[in-house]
């Protein structure tokens, strides 16, 4: 575990969140008053390819969980070479197809709460980001795929899109730039898997939301088999500030390979849960300071750095720098920076069971390891938490996890076993204690037929 490179005096860096506390911050008027839609005008004055380079050089990495370099993703979109015209042979080639931008606003990872408040408090930063991104990748259509349950955010986003149309920021020939863009807000129907980008695309096309086989990747054959960029809300909402502030400014925050600010959503046993925007690389110790410490002073037991799909951390990890590299070096992942904090009153096997039940419920069912594995794992954990487990079950849990991890079709299956393997890694004794509850004389309960 490495020491953080440096500490900053005030770790809060309100970039994305700077308007959030204003009254009626979501209106176009307030957004514009604070310099909104200026970056769009700046962008229109640039060559699209230069925008892509700018974002590449800024080091911005995706905020949806995987941390893929955003500028590089955009550069994968095939574009005609200068002066290249379609011929009979190339007219169906990807560079001559329409390009699409799709915003992933499905925010389903347990504990994650950053995209929703962003769209509630500052939807125009997302819309401006969409305009700049679409201009950069030469897309004239953008869909925002938003989680269906957050009706309030859906309404607000709809309203903001209308405002943007009325102000001429969307539609045909935006502000005389010759650039057209339409944005459609599409509400999902409530499936965690539809946050996975290819399942999202299928769902957006009106199909059953299940991940697609890759290749082809969305960059060559995404929405309606046309080149598509899928980015997270926070990623795209960050783009206007990069255009306005420049890449060097952006790199003053965060660390070399994980620059920029990041919204950490803190939940659980803390005094002031909520969204804290701080440079990437901020530690839990710092975050807890900002959030007023552990609730009622009860000590920390375990926490997730980036949602339930990222392996658990304990109080040993208070000083792990929370950026993509730091979290990985410490044996977990940054994920969505959904920091769920649990104090000593919480049973790890119980929490793990609850998370596993979530994955059991949300597994899309496409592949065997995740579909059957989570069914089995949840069953064992339920039985254990009922005091009917045996020591052997712990081995079975770990072995089944090893048969799911890296064997599944998509990352949901990989993430699903994180709580179990990390929970047993750090808290094996708690699982063993549960098994002791089994009366000595009784054989293990064999519930099902063999």
């Amino acid at each position, binding site marked *: 575990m490495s020491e953080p490179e440096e500490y900053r005096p005030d770790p809060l860096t309100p970039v994305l969140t700077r308007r959030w506390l204003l009254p009626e911050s979501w209106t176009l008027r307030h957004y514009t008053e604070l310099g909104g839609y200026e970056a769009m005008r700046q962008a229109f004055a640039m060559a699209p390819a230069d925008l892509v380079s700018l974002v590449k050089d800024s080091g911005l990495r995706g905020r949806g969980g995987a941390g893929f370099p955003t500028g590089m993703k955009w550069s994968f979109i095939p574009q005609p070479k200068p002066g290249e015209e379609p011929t009979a042979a190339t007219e169906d080639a990807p560079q001559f197809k329409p390009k699409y931008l799709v915003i992933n606003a499905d925010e389903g990872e347990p504990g994650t709460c950053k995209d929703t408040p962003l769209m509630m408090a500052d939807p125009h930063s997302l819309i401006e980001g969409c305009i700049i991104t679409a201009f950069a990748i030469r897309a004239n259509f953008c869909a925002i795929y938003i989680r269906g349950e957050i009706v309030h955010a859906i309404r607000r986003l709809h309203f903001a899109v209308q405002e943007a149309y009325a102000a001429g920021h969307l539609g045909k020939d935006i502000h005389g730039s010759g650039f057209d863009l339409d944005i459609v807000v599409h509400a999902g129907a409530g*499936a965690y*898997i539809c946050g996975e980008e290819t399942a999202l695309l299928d769902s957006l096309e009106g199909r*059953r939301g*299940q991940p697609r*086989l890759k290749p082809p990747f969305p960059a060559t054959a995404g929405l309606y088999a046309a080149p598509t960029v899928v980015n997270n809300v926070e990623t795209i909402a960050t783009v206007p500030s990069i255009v306005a502030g420049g890449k060097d400014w952006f790199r003053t925050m965060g660390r070399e390979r994980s620059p920029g600010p990041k919204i950490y959503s803190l939940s659980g046993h803390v005094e002031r849960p909520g969204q804290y925007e701080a440079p990437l690389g901020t530690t839990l110790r710092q975050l807890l300071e900002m959030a007023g410490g552990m609730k009622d002073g009860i000590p920390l037991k375990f926490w997730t750095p980036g949602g339930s799909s990222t392996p658990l951390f304990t109080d040993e990890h208070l000083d792990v720098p929370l950026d993509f590299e730091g979290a990985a070096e410490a044996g977990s992942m940054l994920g969505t920076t959904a920091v769920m904090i649990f104090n000593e009153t919480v049973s790890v096997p119980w929490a793990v069971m609850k998370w596993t039940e979530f994955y*059991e*419920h*949300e*597994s*899309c*069912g*496409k*592949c*065997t*390891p995740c*579909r*059957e*594995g*989570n*069914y*089995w794992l949840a*069953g*064992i954990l339920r*039985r254990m938490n009922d005091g009917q487990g045996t020591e*052997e079950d712990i081995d*079975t849990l770990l*072995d*089944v996890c*090893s*048969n*799911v991890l*890296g*064997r*599944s*079709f998509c990352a949901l299956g990989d993430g699903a076993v994180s709580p179990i393997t990390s929970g047993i890694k750090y808290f094996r004794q708690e699982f063993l204690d549960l098994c002791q509850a089994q009366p000595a004389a009784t054989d*293990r*309960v*064999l*519930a*099902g*037929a*063999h």
Partner: protein
Amino acid sequence: MTQAPEQEAPPVPEGHVRLTIDGRTVDAPKGEILIRTCERLGIVVPRFCDHPLLEPAGACRQCLVEVEMGGRPMPKPQASCTMTVADGMVVKTQVTSAVADKAQQGVMELLLINHPLDCPICDKGGECPLQNQAMSSGRAESRFHEHKRTFEKPLPISDEVLLDRERCVLCQRCTRFSDQIAGDPFIELLERGAHQQIGTEETAWGAGEEFQSYFSGNTIQICPVGALTSASYRFRSRPFDLVSTPGQCEHCASGCSTRRDWRRGGVTRVLAGEEPTVNEEWLCDKGRFAFRYPASPQRVLQPMVREDGVLTPVPWVDALERAATLLAGARDGRGEPRTGEDGEELAPKRGVGVLPGGRLTVEDAYAYAKFARLALHTNDVDQRARAHSDEELDFLAGHVAGVAPSHVSYAHLEAARTVLCVAFDPEEESPIVFLRLRKAARHGTRVVHVGSWTTPAVVKTGGHLLAAVPGEEPAALADLPDDLAAALAAPGAVVLVGERAAEVPGLLTAVSELGARTGARIAWVPRRAGERGGVDAGALPTLLPGARRVDDADAREAVAAVWGVPSLPAAPGRDLTAMLTAARDGELAGLVLGGVELADLPDPDLARAALAEADVVISLEQVLSEVTEHADVVLPVAPAVNRSGTYRNWEGRDRPFATTIDPGQGGSGRVGGTAAVTLPDCRVLDSLAVEMDVDLFTQTPQAAAAELAELGTVAVTPSTPATRPSSPDVSDGTRLTSDDSSGPPLTGRVRLATWRQLIDGGALLAEETDLPGTARPPRLRVAAGTAERLGLVAGEPARLGDTLDLVVELADLPADVVWAPSHVPVPGGVVTLAGLGLGHGDLVDVAAPVAAAVAPVVAHGEPQ
């Protein structure tokens, strides 16, 4: 493909990559899927979802292997069924990699935790990939202590297909088949996680569209477990108690290979045989499920002669003798002299016509053709038990007879840029041709249908309809849109024409002219399995075997030489209608009939009158029928399962088959509960001829085939244009758009479009109780505007002609045109439009039925 590493490695062939699998170097074509490369090396990677004819899914994860690319091992095991080979790839399967082996064991265990312990009662037990791979890649003992997931079982997906959801491993083969291959997404994945299941619209919503697919049975065959079973086979047998015999489908001219599984003298199921050049691995439901007709109580198992008006079983010798005597007398006009209407004495009836029907093997058709010429001294032989014309005879002689598959084959269809279908709805009339056209269309072929509405087949092959008013198709062909005409002029273009083109005067000539004009290749696709072979075998009034014309003296001489006779009858024969007319009018004395259904004929009443009037009727039949009711002698013939022979499919490709169940082989040969032996038509005709002092040399199909081969085929240029001039005044074939304009009420008559549906109560569907449930319900189709003007309401009945009531469904027909199926199954039989005097292109009365009019014949299928 493999070589020892010490040797100097030869260069990688063009278009290939070189990789290593389990330490062996192999060159594989670029783009090959890894699991297939392994197969070629004899390394069997276990799998469930993978199927070579379906797009990869990567769903089951059973096929995981370790892969190294560019010297770097990939972090996770990879699904070998979704990964394409790459140069320098190093692959380790379960054979050499502990990681791959553990991954496969792990997936297998996960597949089994929720799998029921059904093997002892499961249809798949004994041939089950899950059982087999559980043995090869599974653990012996379970460590699953939770409850297994259960579902209500079985779920009927259709009358034919049943689903046991807890046996399902969710490999999506069935759903991918129905979506990608058949284009009938009648099943889908529902729910998610461990609740994910295969279901129908009905399971999803509680109600849904009626199931419809002609290909549903394939899902049963490709299901890697016993989750999908067929109503007709479920719980009937264990696979290891069955004998599997390769066969050929007798139901249509597509020419599918089948595998017949049978025991105790009866077929228990039919499976698709693998035949990449023809049916790939598919069958239509008719071919798969219509196999019980030989067990019909109507089967004729013994020869019968009519004694005092009653058909009475007699020994073969007696029946043959009687038939021979009657035929010789009729042939020579030795019957009673007749008295004319005015009391004058008329010459006795003379001559015998031969109506073999269109379901014969090549050998049988040849025997009928030869029997007519040698035993009956006539060219009066016509296999066409359907609408026919002289124009068609010319077309068959010019474009079909003797043409080999190298002219147009399935492969040509797949490779063509453009295919034009004329008077041919492929899904209804040749289902495997349809599947191939759909495959082609999915890969970019433009399939255009000249027809009257956007049928399901049109939709599923790309949606290109060239609308034509029934009867005016020739004009439509004469005036094709320029882009289509240009596309047909490009190399590889094909025109497929159906047998019902004969119903429209001038259409076959127009097709022929189109071929001459554009250079597009023409292929004729008849419905019945025997028609194509019959053309080559000479079962037509103007053609001798081997594409020789009757009116060609040299050709007659050549055939006569091989047949060992001085000469053959020179006058071209009469066609079916002419023969029946002559018989009805008392000119023709006798008729020999093969498997002919009177209801199938263009004028069933004429046929009935002819049979009643003829002095001699000899029937070679498998079952009692309307023909046998009139027969003086009935000679039983063998169904396809009890004999060998060859069908020649629409391509002109021979589809030879051996006997499936030999009735001569003691107990295993019992047919329908008797030990009767039935013989092929060619053998019966041979014996009959002997009684008439003629040798046919067709004792066995092999003998007949050998002689036919000896005769050979005269050189054919398939594009020889038809000789007949194009038919007169066809009106201007303007292209039409669907009629949705409402105009003044229509009181006159409308134009009828009609053709047959695949499952419509045909003769070979006898005894099938479940199959008819998957038929398309008979409907009267009409455009909205025309319906309004006729006073018809969608979902309500309409009366076609005087008596036939059909439920109305709206479709995009041209104005003042209605469509109805040619055959409408009704309780206890079938009503044919031909029987009602209605044909394609005719003007008909259509109206909403008036209450309490003539008691109507109501087609089955309630209004929805």
